[in-house]
């Protein structure tokens, strides 16, 4: 996994030093209307993604973390054009794919594939596994019928499944194996970009590790680019080159993985990191914990100004009034933070402490 210093902001198809940006999102907005009735005036909307700009460099792994309601799953589906955008722009491999028709999108789909979260519901229980994996090949007609089975078995071996089992049903496989089936299905068309929406969250710890290693190996072997969405911070840190943190539909911080975890600048990132219990007994109890008050506000009615200000221990009056833009850190142009008062390095203890 190569470290990427390419374009982090919006728009540019090529980074400052020439590394190629494979996927670029510019001000992507996705709202879901809530109950449009003839009687009700105006339309309330779930503002799932509310202006996200980022880009993914070829060959890297971009991790996206956030909690429930932050919009990361919606963003994934927007990026793969499963959902039409409310507004904004998506560029893939230099081509604007925002407004493409379904037929035009088919060609794009060969290069962008998704791996889904739930190994139990992302596979049709009434279809045989071989048929499921062959689906993309049949739809796009890339493999002649006579060679289908061979190709499917090839893919099964690639992901660590027994190729003899291609006539079985998903119910005959364990969770980890089903996830492998999902990955095999996604790889059938030899895509360039794989968007993984919580690919290991539903798996046991030991199986998670197997799948994480599989994804890493496949990336090396096939030269894939990943967008890796998860809520488990240690997993994201492990797999990613760069990480974006989302809160209530917006990206609040984006930086190289090591930098983000060592010296977060956004208060939410700091809280999230401190809330993640570390599997080391001494560090776990010795560490100061930033425990946030309250719950995540509803995406239908997000707070004014900086969306995090209602729960932020460092909030000031300006935060409620003005929404902070994503700005680079003074010492690292690729580390962007959306905060009026970003944290200094090492500043992790908020003014009001909660300790035990």
């Amino acid at each position: 996994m190569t470290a990427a210093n390419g374009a982090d902001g919006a728009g540019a198809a090529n980074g400052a030093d020439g590394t190629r940006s494979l996927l670029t999102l510019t001000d992507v907005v996705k709202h879901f209307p809530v109950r449009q009735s003839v009687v009700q005036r105006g339309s309330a909307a779930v503002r799932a993604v509310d202006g996200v700009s980022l880009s993914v460099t070829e060959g890297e792994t971009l991790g996206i973390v956030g909690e429930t309601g932050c919009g990361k799953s919606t963003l994934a589906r927007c990026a793969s054009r499963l959902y039409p955008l409310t507004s904004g722009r998506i560029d893939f491999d230099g081509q604007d794919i925002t407004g493409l028709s379904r037929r035009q999108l088919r060609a794009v789909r060969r290069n962008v594939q998704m791996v889904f979260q739930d190994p139990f519901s992302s596979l049709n229980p009434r279809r045989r596994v071989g048929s499921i994996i062959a689906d993309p090949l049949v739809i796009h007609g890339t493999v002649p019928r006579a060679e289908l089975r061979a190709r499917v078995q090839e893919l099964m071996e690639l992901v660590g499944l027994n190729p003899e089992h291609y006539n079985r049903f998903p119910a005959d496989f364990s969770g980890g194996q089903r996830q492998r089936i999902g990955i095999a299905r996604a790889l059938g068309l030899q895509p360039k970009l794989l968007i993984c929406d919580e690919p290991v969250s539903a798996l046991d710890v030991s199986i998670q590790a197997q799948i994480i290693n599989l994804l890493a190996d496949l990336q090396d072997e096939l030269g894939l680019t990943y967008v890796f969405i998860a809520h488990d911070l240690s997993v994201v840190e492990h797999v990613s080159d760069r990480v974006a943190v989302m809160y209530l539909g917006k990206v609040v911080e984006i930086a190289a993985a090591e930098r983000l975890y060592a010296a977060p600048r956004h208060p939410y990132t700091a809280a999230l990191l401190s809330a993640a219990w570390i599997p080391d007994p001494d560090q776990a109890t010795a560490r100061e914990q930033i425990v946030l008050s309250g719950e995540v506000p509803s995406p239908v009615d997000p707070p004014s100004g900086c969306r995090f200000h209602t729960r932020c221990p460092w909030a000031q009056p300006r935060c409620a009034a003005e929404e902070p833009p994503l700005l680079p850190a003074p010492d690292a142009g690729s580390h962007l933070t959306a905060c009026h008062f970003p944290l200094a390095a090492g500043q992790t203890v908020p003014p009001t402490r909660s300790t035990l």
Partner: protein
Amino acid sequence: MTAAPAASELALDVRDLHVSFPTPDGVVRAVRGASFQVEPGSTLAIVGESGSGKSVCAQTLLGLHAGADVTGQALFGGRDLLAMSEDALRKVRGAEISMIFQDPLTSLHPLHRVGWQITEAIGAHQPVTRREARTRAIELLDMVGIPRPASRVDDYPHQFSGGMRQRAMIAMALALRPSLIIADEPTTALDATVQAQILQLLQQIQHDHGTALLMITHDLAVVAGLADTVLVMYAGRPVEIGDRRTVYRTPHHPYTRGLLGSVPGAGGSIKKRLVPIPGQPPSLIQLPAGCPFHPRCPFAFDRCETEEPSLRPVAGAGGHVSACWLPAESARAAQPLDAEGSHP
């Protein structure tokens, strides 16, 4: 840890618990001889993955095991929970032992107000008036950190967010000041920041009321911060028991080591390649002969294939036991972690 305390001092003393279910495919032996103790005011964490039997263990203690064959003893305050009648168990449930489940949306009744559910729980065990119970319910909601408890007490579960529902469950669990709380994956369904709040709450409750906590979880990170004693379960049996620091820093059983190696960051640098346990957990109907872990164990030798090891003491910290044929000293030899998380 010194010599095992006398039985009457323990909050819970489980001896040789066996739970199995008949199914069309064969008998599923979900729990095969589990013995453990929970000391008053302390936390025992039972860690395991799917199929380890940890949830079945917990649910059996409270009689929630319809259709299962159960043998063994679960001594609570001198009485055997497994031998009690349904009526006697009902008196114990809620009052002396409470349970917190994973998904509060399905364990709270969706059609009754939250306050009503708490008052019902209180009223089932104590002769209190409606008003007294309601006051207590509001007190409890306040204690667990629900804002504006006097008005929220009349809300329905769906009007609470996930974290608040879990708090309400905890409030219900606390209503009668139990001496033991059994928490079955209490934070798995919650976001990280909310999880932190709930765990902090549980710690505070323990601190304030001296309640013992039996926590079932698969999350090693949660255990690292919360548990006093850790019990690792695999294929229906405990395979390692020890205090928290010992198990994390000098694990003996290869499964425990494998688990720790599967978590990013647990074995050193976060970017270091994970060393997962190969293969999958065994079927509880057709267990391998000998040690159930041997097909996946990098250290297995011939004895492992024929004889299943019992829990044997491990050299080092007292009370550390492991169900493994490897020599007792091998825990020290196998790469203990020092404070910075790197190898010495």
